[in-house]
């Protein structure tokens, strides 16, 4: 498959250059070619010095410590042994220089995503790159972290490093980049000096037309669906304590919070993957802590997991078999093809081929499959955990619209997201979560951005 075709991009030392485009437009492939991880069939990459790359999907060795990852293959040695003290010192110095605080001795697998990304970034910075490629660097960061991240990047650029940011977040492109290149279908379709263009204009160039609007919110008659009282739960790296809230049929409840504040434990408890204490009532019936995931599915509780690659999809399988996953007991074999066609059409999965291997699809198209099959399964309650993570505007708007349509049709939606814009766009009510506890509740009419941001940061 040809992912990129005849692309020319020129980075200048000292600039932050944004590369934007739809899912599968070839951004990540281009970055990989520039880094040297993928061979170009034609053309060449010329760089004056070391090229660094920070991946969207981190390439860290989970079992190793931070300093071991940062200095991998470049460990300071004393004869045959690694000089651990010097290594720790070097990582600390690096962290201080760029304002990326980490604990050098922490084991990577215990760290939240945001910190892992810092480790990934530090690893590249240690090589003192003259060109730094960042693939969706802010996908996992909280609003306040995003600002400080770009402060760091800006400082780096000021020292003469050329920086290419591959992203779909146009607000960040406008706010932080000096130039922008727009790609579509493997080709460059526009180049701008950022100050001479606008987010809307870039969005239109990416999509190749008008950006689709979010689905309209209908008025719905809500009814009690999920009641949660004093819920506490714990999953691998996440703890939730004493949560009390309700989700009504026909409404979207948004859970706003920074990653790593108990959202995973909440989603897992509802999915039936981890046990809980407290009281959960669904349609008036108590849910038991030892219920299997299958019994939750039978009741109509469906969770869109955060990590689609591991928790939702079988990457080696085709689209059709993945669409069936979770409904394999209710659909007859003869219905598989129809179920796949339905999701492919409603969610505009590209390529529209039920036999395509899911692992080869772009993240956005993978997510469309997960969301599509979840909504097609006659769910009563949909728990959507980061449903638009790492996917571009077109796909995100599509996913959000489908969630809103489900709400309009009487489905209860619990939307857990780290992106405030998404929550404000979709939710009827907003709950703020911080440090594993619920910190505040807002109706759509009374949303106070500043107050919510403060609560998310743990300031009461």
């Amino acid at each position, binding site marked *: 498959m040809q992912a990129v075709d005849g692309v020319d991009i020129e980075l200048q030392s000292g600039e932050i250059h944004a590369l934007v485009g739809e899912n599968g437009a070839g951004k990540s492939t281009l970055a990989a070619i520039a880094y040297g991880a993928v061979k170009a069939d034609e053309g060449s990459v010329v760089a004056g010095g070391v090229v660094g790359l920070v991946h969207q999907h981190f390439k860290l060795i989970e079992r190793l410590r931070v300093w071991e990852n940062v200095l991998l293959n470049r460990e300071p040695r004393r004869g045959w042994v690694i000089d651990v003290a010097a290594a720790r010192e070097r990582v600390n110095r690096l962290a201080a220089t760029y304002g990326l605080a980490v604990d050098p001795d922490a084991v990577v697998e215990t760290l939240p995503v945001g910190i892992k990304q810092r480790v990934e970034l530090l690893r590249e910075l240690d090589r003192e790159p003259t060109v730094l490629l960042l693939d969706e660097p802010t996908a996992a960061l909280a609003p306040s972290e995003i600002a400080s991240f770009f402060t760091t990047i800006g400082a780096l650029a000021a020292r003469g490093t050329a920086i290419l940011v591959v992203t779909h977040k146009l607000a960040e492109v406008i706010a932080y980049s000096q130039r922008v290149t727009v790609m579509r279908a493997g080709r460059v379709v526009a180049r701008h000096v950022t100050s001479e263009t606008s987010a809307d204009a870039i969005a239109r160039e990416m999509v190749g037309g008008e950006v689709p609007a979010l689905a309209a919110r209908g008025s719905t008659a809500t009814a009690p669906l999920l009641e949660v009282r004093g819920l506490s739960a714990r999953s691998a790296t996440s703890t939730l304590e004493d949560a009390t809230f309700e989700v009504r049929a026909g409404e979207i409840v948004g859970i706003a919070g920074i990653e790593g504040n108990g959202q995973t434990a909440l989603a897992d408890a509802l999915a039936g*993957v981890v046990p809980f204490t407290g009281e959960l009532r669904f349609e008036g019936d108590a849910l038991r802590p030892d219920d299997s995931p299958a019994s939750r*599915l039978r009741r109509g509780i469906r969770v869109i997991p955060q990590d689609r690659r591991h928790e*939702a*999809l*079988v990457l080696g399988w085709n689209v059709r078999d993945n669409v069936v*996953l*979770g409904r394999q007991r209710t659909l007859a074999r003869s219905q598989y093809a129809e179920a796949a066609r339905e999701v492919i059409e409603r969610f505009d999965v590209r390529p529209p081929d039920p036999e395509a291997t899911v692992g080869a699809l772009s993240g956005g198209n993978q997510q469309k499959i997960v969301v599509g099959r979840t909504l097609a399964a006659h769910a009563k309650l949909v728990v959507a955990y980061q449903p638009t993570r790492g996917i571009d505007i077109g796909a995100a708007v599509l996913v959000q619209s489908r969630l809103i349509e489900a709400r309009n049709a009487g489905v209860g939606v619990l939307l857990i997201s780290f992106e405030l814009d998404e929550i404000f766009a979709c939710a009827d009510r907003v709950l703020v979560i911080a440090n594993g506890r619920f910190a505040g509740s807002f109706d759509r009419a009374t949303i106070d951005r500043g107050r919510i941001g403060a609560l998310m940061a743990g300031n009461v």
Partner: protein
Amino acid sequence: MSALLRGRAFRDVAVVIVVVFGFGSIAMLLAHVSPLDGFGALFDGAFGTRSELAETLVQTTSLLFPALGVAIAARAGLFNIGADGQLILGGFAAGWIGAQFPLPGYLAIPMVLLAGTFAGGAWGAIAGFLRARFGANEVIATLMLNYVAVLLATYLVNGPLQQGGAGASETAGLPKAAQLPDLIADSRLTWAFVIALVVAFVLRWVLQRTVFGYELRAAGDAPEAAKRAGIDLGRTAFVAMTLSGALAGLGGATIVSGVLHRFNTGLSPGYGFIAIAVALVGNLDPLWIVVASFAFGVLQSGGVAMQAEALVPRDVVTLVTGLAIIALAGRRVVASLRST
């Protein structure tokens, strides 16, 4: 894990061919034999006459059952290296029951085969239960259960359930009614071969076309996603290991009923271990495994002829088999490192 064990069938076959002929040639040269003579004798011994071809198919059959067992466990993400023990216990149950309870033919053969299937299944189920209930590593459990199986069968056959005598660790002979009928006259090839082929096709159908097969593959390919899709991983592990053991046990029963006509503690020259290689070369796909079993059957039966005819030590076959496994495993490891 099963994704790790599966590769591209075609390329794997190419690797195996290169290893077998390349290293086989080197080993033959070290034994001062021309590779042309050596491999000539091997293929002549495997296909040369009708009875030699029949013997090759006997070996194919004996490998096919445990290889299918290994494959179904691997498709569920489990590594069953206890197929040899399951095969031996299956053979024991078949031999003991077949000799102990004479029944008319139309009942005797099914009873003998079922006895082996159940015994092997029960043995696999132990590891499956330990995995499902306590999360015990099935590799260690099945490995250890191999020893227990051999010792248990030896004890039973020499002790409380002794039927034989004459010093060999074996049961009494099976009555004619309990012996699988010959497929080719004057050979040891029986209807077991046909049963094995049917089982392979059924297994493929089960894996590809049934909800059970779907859930089993999901559990193996993406356990976390499978769990969240309502698939009970513990139950799947238990059923897969039971089925895996049952297939190996059925294999043992066919060796007893078709080849030896009695159980002997030495009935397996390590079929359950070679089966791991067969399953890997067959890409864990039942139909490819039929092909792989035949290829290994050729090596097994041709290897003896090669020794008798070209004076190449038969260990050359063991050597190249081992090297082929290492090469395949190496490819998988490299592939998995590249993909992460």
